[in-house]
């Protein structure tokens, strides 16, 4: 989800409820929002719900947006928090994790079995997977992961360590 130079003009138009401008923003950021939500939730339908909610709520949310020039990072945090809130409300309904067909369709040059890795990641308990995704894939620091999840940085580090151990066991079991 990289920063795009023309975002600021579009943001002003989206704030004024310009649907075409929102469509432009969607074209730039939808894949990243969807991927992030999907990695946190592990269920395609729920990730799509988050994607829709984020873009439906964006015109209103931008009224409080003050981080000029850092829209992509701000949108990423909004997406993480929206996905975490959805996860909390739908924990009991969880489907088979990370089953998305798009993962299987992507070619890989790595000797590691990418699909097996994604599936193993999907089988991790939620508290471990969330930390793993945010730290190892999204690149947040432990302090930032802690702030997003409401845990300490030390707890984030401990969960990451346990996630790696569990991931390795899953892959080699």
């Amino acid at each position, binding site marked *: 989800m990289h920063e795009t130079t023309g975002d600021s003009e579009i943001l002003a138009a989206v704030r004024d409820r310009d649907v075409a401008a929102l469509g432009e923003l969607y074209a730039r950021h939808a894949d990243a929002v969807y991927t992030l939500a999907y990695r946190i939730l592990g269920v395609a339908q729920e990730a799509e719900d988050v994607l829709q909610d984020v873009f439906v709520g964006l015109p*209103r949310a931008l009224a409080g947006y003050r981080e000029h020039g850092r829209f992509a990072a701000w949108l990423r945090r909004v997406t993480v928090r929206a996905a975490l*809130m959805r996860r909390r409300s739908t924990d009991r309904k969880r489907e088979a994790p990370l089953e998305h067909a798009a993962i299987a369709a992507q070619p890989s040059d790595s000797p590691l079995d990418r699909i097996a890795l994604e599936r193993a990641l999907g089988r991790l308990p939620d508290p471990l997977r969330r930390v793993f995704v945010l730290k190892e894939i999204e690149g947040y620091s432990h302090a930032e992961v802690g702030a997003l999840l409401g845990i300490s940085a030390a707890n984030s580090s401990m969960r990451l360590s346990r996630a790696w151990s569990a991931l390795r066991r899953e892959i080699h079991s």
Partner: protein
Amino acid sequence: MRMHPDTGRIARSAEATTAGVTSTRLDTHLAECGDCRATLEWIRDARAVLRGEPPLRAPARAWSHIANRLAAGDVVLLPDGTWPAAAPQPASRRLLAAAVILVLVASAASAMLPGSPLRHWIEAIARPRETPPAAPAMPAAGTAAAAAGDATAPVTTMIVAAADGDVVIEIETPDPGLELRVRLTDQVDLEVRATGAAAGATFRSGPGRLTITKPGAGQILLLLPRQANHIAIGVDRTTYLVKARDRLQILAPVVDTAGTEFILRPGS
């Protein structure tokens, strides 16, 4: 027998090495142990694979759904995207603690000196004073907060009139500390009483409909009229309770009961 560090420890080591921090004991073990070196390599490969994946494609139908929802006036309140205020770093916490100790020591030393204003002040406040007995506080009448023993807690009360006998209540993004109490009554209309931080939620109502957004860690009491045809209560789009004529169905775990009330914790 040689003890191997677990994968998590090796992963932490890989992270620390990237940051320029090394553990001599672990490095020594890795230099001698092929299995653990293989684990380290596996971690690096797995990290590279997962970080290098291109984003998934958002479903093609999603944009048309978004456009339809916007056209229908759908409102979504998104969570805040700003970072919370930075917590003090350990070093600055230590400095702060040292400064506080220094001030206390200096104050104590000053209070020991004869004629010190601080000493006079301490003696003045230490002297016993006669005060008239306080008048008993008047109880606040008729509020749920008073019933709960907290007269200062904020209270929001709403009446929701049914539309053709139907009422739908949607609670969005409740705080984990929110307590939801449900009671059947002989009232004609549905009544909602929010207390504590729950009273600071956003309430939007229409005929037969009430949406409560972001209720904080407090209590929401729902008084459901027995004679209503149909009442549905949902939390973040999950149905928690349905009352259809004489039948009350609770679809979420009831954490407790109090008299005729059911107690739910929708945010936990």
